[in-house]
């Protein structure tokens, strides 16, 4: 059966919107503001994706096992406004990340700050879920 082009375009739009809605979740739905965590590890990957970026770091846990943590950040445009640059996050760089633990029990968190150990540079991840009061109007994420 041949699908008219207009139907295909509309269907694609609906499907992509649905995917975006699913991906752009509220903080409270996925993360717990009562559970702050601080992780020290090395960068293995940075995904500059929308609607959220994702930083992956290798963390040696107290039991000696190395766990890959996925840390959600603001969108790339928001990170850029906050001073993030690709060259700031080289693979293997040691970082300390503050954030809030995911509700689903996985090694996932919503990052609030990323501190580069070598330079001391601190990057704000633009988390919406610091537990602190909202940002003033006009200061968009």
């Amino acid at each position, binding site marked *: 059966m041949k699908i008219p082009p207009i139907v295909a375009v509309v269907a694609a739009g609906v499907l992509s919107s649905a995917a975006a809605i699913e991906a752009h979740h509220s*903080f*409270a739905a996925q993360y*717990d*503001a*009562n*559970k*702050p*965590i*601080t*992780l*020290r590890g090395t960068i293995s990957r940075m995904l500059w994706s929308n609607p959220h970026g994702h930083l992956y770091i290798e*963390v040696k*846990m*107290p*039991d000696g*096992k190395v*766990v890959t943590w996925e840390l959600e950040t*603001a969108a790339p445009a928001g990170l850029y406004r*906050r001073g993030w640059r690709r060259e700031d996050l080289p693979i293997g760089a040691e970082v*300390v990340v*503050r954030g809030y*633990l995911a509700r689903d*029990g996985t*090694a996932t968190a919503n990052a*609030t*700050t990323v*501190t580069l150990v070598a330079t001391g540079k601190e990057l*704000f991840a*633009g*988390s*919406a*879920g*610091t*537990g*602190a*009061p*909202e*940002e*003033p109007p006009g*200061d968009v*994420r």
Partner: protein
Amino acid sequence: MPRVRGCGGASVGAGMRRCIARPLACSLVVAVSAGSAAQSPSDFSGHWKINQAKSSAGATGNNAKVSFPSELVVAHHGSDLRVEIRYPRTDPIVATYPLGGGDVAVPVPGVTETARAVWDGGRLVITARRVVSTPFGDFVTDTREVWSRAGGVLTIQKTQTSEGLSETETGVFEGGS
């Protein structure tokens, strides 16, 4: 040449210095004691709302490094201090601190938190340890809050330490009783 005697018969020199130094030291002790006595414990009772503009940059908003509540409802009950801590995205937490010291469990859902409140002159110091347990191990965050009140302003200096990283921010709350 006869030596000139100072008070108490001490010769000028070391004796005179002692003669002057003792009353001076006594005066300082009295002054310091009077200052301490003036720093009696403050009354933190009331409904307090954070003023973001007056708080430090890392205390509120999406760039917060140390998170502060949006509101506090504080009441003194005898020797206890009851604090309702309201965050914008979570249910309120009520902590009751015995002001004579002693650890209390703070009922934060999903975590283990132990805290202690003590007076430091007119200021209140609340220290707490929050343990977040995960399948990958425990995460420990220590906080130290120093509360001080001046009229209708409650200032809380909060230091948060975890994984060797320590940050201090200041939250300014307005209101009170």
